[in-house]
Structures are given as structure tokens and as C-alpha cells.
């Protein structure tokens, strides 16, 4: 991991790109692959996760002095589960169609390692303002990643973007992109693209920083 950033802008921006939760840290892959067959679903899942992350970070950061460290993980999970239940109920009441499309995966935001990770690594150690910046940055990075994956899959799999047909009626859709295999392939393609780009850019100066970070993050026990 990179050294702790100092300015608020850095706190905000690193989650979006340099420490993108999906592409770099490979966290929260379950929703990132399971519901990203269209951009609309990706966006809804991204926003729901964003809401939960932001809410939990604020609450954890505010309450950090009252939570004894022995029960902190349980307390975080309780906080996260509360926000997820709220998000689940609100989505079901306001946008029932999207709620049906996302199905059980809204509830599974609870076990998104990214959210718990941010509480443990940042919100519980920083003042509210910085926790908000961190949550916004990380949440935005998650949305960016989900929409990128969803866009790739929807354009190839349905020939449309956000439901708007792009490629004409004669386009032969690549059904595999909507299927589970397409989810793995899409993220695989994107990571290969990063790997290629990084290998080309950095030649031997800083070899494979992306991939090393990614590997280390995933293999370390949470």
C-alpha cells in the first residue's frame, strides 16, 4: 500500500483510480461481476454500495471513540447491515424493477469486503471530514469500475448502452457477455489491458506495480 496521503484531495482521488477497489484491490468482486450485465444495474448497485459505504463511514468515524476495539468488527457489521437493510427496503419501494434485477445481491453488500475494509482501515482512525472524503472517493471508484464493466458487457451483450440501442437492429449480440463467463472474461480483459499498459509504460523502471499490489492485497487474509 502507498503511504498515507496527506491532503484531502489525495484522500478523495486515490480510491477512484490509483487504489480502485475493483481493478486494483480486487475487492467486492461478487457484486462487480454478478449484477453488471447492464449499465443500469451496475449504476444501481454502485449507488447502493456508495450509500452504504458513506453512511457507515460517517457513523463509524463519529462513534469511533465509543466503540471498544474488542467488539469493533461486530459493531461495524451491525452498522453496515443496518444501512444495507435500509438501502434494500428503499430500492424495493422506489425502483422495484431494479430491485428485482439485483435480487439477493443487494443484501450481499453486507459482505462486500471493500466496505468493512474502509471502516477498519480508515473511518475508525480518522475524523469525520476525512472519512467522508475517503468514502466518496472509494465509492466513486467502485461506481466507475462497475459502470465500466457493465458498459462493456451491455454494449457487446445487448448492443446498447443504458438501454439505448447503439449498433443497429442487425447486430448479433454476444450473449456470452451477459452470462457469468462473460463477467469473468470482462474483468479479465480489463486487468490484461492494465497489465499491458503498465508493462509498456513502465518497462523496467517500476515493473508491474499494479499487478503486484493487486496480488498482495487479495492474497493477504482479511
Amino acid at each position, binding site marked *: 500500500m502507498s503511504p498515507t496521503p496527506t491532503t484531502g484531495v489525495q484522500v478523495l482521488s486515490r480510491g477512484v483510480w490509483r487504489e480502485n477497489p475493483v481493478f486494483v484491490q480486487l475487492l467486492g468482486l461478487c457484486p462487480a461481476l454478478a449484477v453488471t450485465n447492464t449499465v443500469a444495474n451496475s449504476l444501481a448497485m454502485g449507488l447502493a454500495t456508495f450509500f452504504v459505504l458513506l453512511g457507515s463511514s460517517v457513523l463509524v468515524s463519529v462513534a469511533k471513540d465509543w466503540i471498544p476495539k474488542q467488539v469493533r468488527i461486530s459493531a461495524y457489521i451491525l452498522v453496515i447491515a443496518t444501512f444495507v437493510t435500509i438501502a434494500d427496503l428503499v430500492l424495493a419501494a422506489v425502483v422495484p424493477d431494479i430491485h428485482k434485477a439485483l435480487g439477493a445481491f443487494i443484501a450481499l453488500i453486507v459482505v462486500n469486503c471493500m466496505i468493512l475494509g474502509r471502516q477498519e482501515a480508515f473511518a475508525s482512525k480518522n475524523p469525520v471530514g476525512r472519512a467522508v472524503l475517503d468514502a466518496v472517493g472509494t465509492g466513486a471508484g467502485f461506481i466507475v469500475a462497475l459502470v465500466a464493466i457493465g458498459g462493456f458487457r451491455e454494449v457487446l451483450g445487448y448492443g446498447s448502452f443504458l438501454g439505448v440501442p447503439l449498433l443497429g437492429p442487425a447486430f*448479433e449480440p454476444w*450473449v*456470452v457477455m451477459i452470462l457469468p463467463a462473460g463477467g469473468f472474461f470482462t474483468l479479465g480483459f480489463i486487468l490484461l489491458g492494465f497489465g499491458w499498459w503498465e508493462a509498456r509504460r513502465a518497462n523496467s523502471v517500476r515493473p508491474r506495480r499494479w499487478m503486484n499490489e493487486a496480488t498482495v492485497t487479495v492474497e*493477504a487474509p482479511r
Partner: protein
Amino acid sequence: MSAGARGAGRGGGAPKAPARWSAASRAGRLELTASPHIKGPDSTPRIMWTVVASLAPVVVAATWWFGVSALILLAGATLGAVATERWFGPGGTLRDGSAAITGLLLGLTLPASVPLWVAVIGGAFSIAFGKLIFGGLGQNVFNPALLGRAFLQAAFPTVMTTWPTRPETWGTLAGDTFALPFMSGDAVAALTGATPLGLMKFESVGTEVARLAVGATGGSLGETAAIAILAGGAWLAAKRYLDWRIPVSILATVAVLSQVVRWIDPSSPGPLFMLFSGGLMLGAVYMATDMVTSPTTPTGAWIYGVGIGALVVLIRLWGGLPEGVMYAILLMNAMVPFIERATKPRVFGTGAPVEATS
């Protein structure tokens, strides 16, 4: 990350990946050797081009039954594979012919009516993600041609399950072969029939074994003429270019299991039908025997073959798909590293304690 050294130090994997070839190709030489169980003067190019030659009767049969479209598609799939190998592969690996074989085999598994661009994409996918991503020849896990076929089947399910009838004249296209890239073909143009397995599964209609043997049925380009495939396979087996244990164990398993099922349920298709229909012959002789993706030990070869046969019977008789040879082989490809471990007692028994992460 010195992957080679790390893996070799643990001794966990199969010793079939030759560390040599990258060095050799970097030096600009073309002397490539792949599977280590081949000894003597048989170089990789020689084996590969012999396999291509042995496919001649199958290609002739495909062209006979499906007309000019067959030739165009076979050329397209081969071109897609060879071009990908040329552009993205390590230099100089084209001449060993392995990319051409992959393309040709993939082409033989396509229905005659698919658009040309589908065949080209399939060939490119086979080589790029079936082979090059693992580091090239000799290091891939899945049979590249079948992985490409599985991808196409998942990507374009309608196109890949439309089986045209024999065109009226040899020069008539079997479908919308020249559809614009990424656009769907004109489905009305193709007169569609059904494969013998589809007829059996969905309508309980059998097909005479004699027609199956010569290929006068619907199906993929190269899978219909069982006799042509057997001829090519026998020649290769005689030259010891393929491990006879694999096709024999696959075919025997299918025959035995389908006979057993027939005793229990007389309405199920018998062994002869099961053996000669669908892609079983092509898969057993040319796909499952791929030296890279099949086990190297004799015991392993038997286990692998029996596994494929059992999976074929399972999917054909109880699955939702009429045909399962492709999936059976891919699944057993995935099992090969495991089979190799299990059939090498030295490695399997000692199994050094390993830490959770590295």
C-alpha cells in the same frame, strides 16, 4: 515474479511445459519441442503437419456434404487462428502448424451456416485465450479449439445451433456466410434441419447408423462422417502420434454405459447410435488426444478417457443439451493437472506442507 523457478521448486505440477522454447525463439531458432513424451526424430512441426494431413478425409467429407461454405469457414477459422498467432504470439511459432490445426479443428466443429466472421473470431479467441495467454504451445490448459467453440456457443447460441440441410448444389452457400462482420446473418436463407442427437433427445427419433457413419446427417462440418474421422485417427495412431488409450477408453466407456442404460430403459439410444452420432468421434480422436491438454501417464490417460466418456453419457442422456462432447473434454482438461498429480505417487504421497499464501 519468477514463476518458473517457484513452481519448479515445489515440484507440484506436470513437467510438460518446456522452459526451452522461449529461449530458443528469442534466439531466433525454430527448433521447437513441445510434449516431452514424444521421442526420436518427431519434431513438433512434423507431428502437427501430419495431423493436418490426416484431417484431409474429414475436410473432403465436410465439403462433400455441406458445399463450398465448408471450405470458406474452414479457411476463415484457420486464418483467424494463424493471424492471431502471427501478431500476438512469440516470433516464429507459425511454422510448427499448431495454430493451423487449432483453426482447422475449430472450423470442423462449426455448423455450415455460421457467418464467416464468427469463424474468424472463434479462431482468434482460441489462440489468444486458449493458448497464447498461457505462454504458447505446450502450456495451455484447455484444448484451444474447443475453448473457442465453447465461447462461440455461449456468445452466439442461435447461430451455433442452427443446422442447415445439404445445399442443392455444391456451389450454394449453406447459410449467410458473407454476413457483414458483427451483424446477424439472414436466418431465413438457411434451410434448417436437426442433428441426429437433437432428433433423438427432443423427438425420440432415431437415425440409421449407416447414414451416421458416412455423414449424411445434420451436424457440424467435420463431425458427421465418422468413417473419415476413424480413418485419419487410425493412421495417426499407427504412427504413434496420438495416444490410442484415450479414444479407446472414451469410446468404450460410452458404449458400455449406454448399453447398461439401455438394459434398464429400452427406449434410450443404444451404443451404436451414441458412438456414431454427434461430435464423439471427432472429439475422441482429434480433440481429447491433444498432447498438451491430456495426461502424460498411461494410467492418467485411462482415467481421463473414462471421465470424458462418462460425462458425455451424462450430458447426452440427462442434461439439457443434446450434445456434450465439447463440455466433457473441457471439463476433463480442467481435471488433467489433478489427474497428473494423482497418477504420480511420488508427488502425491509426499505433498509437502504448503502455506496459505505466497
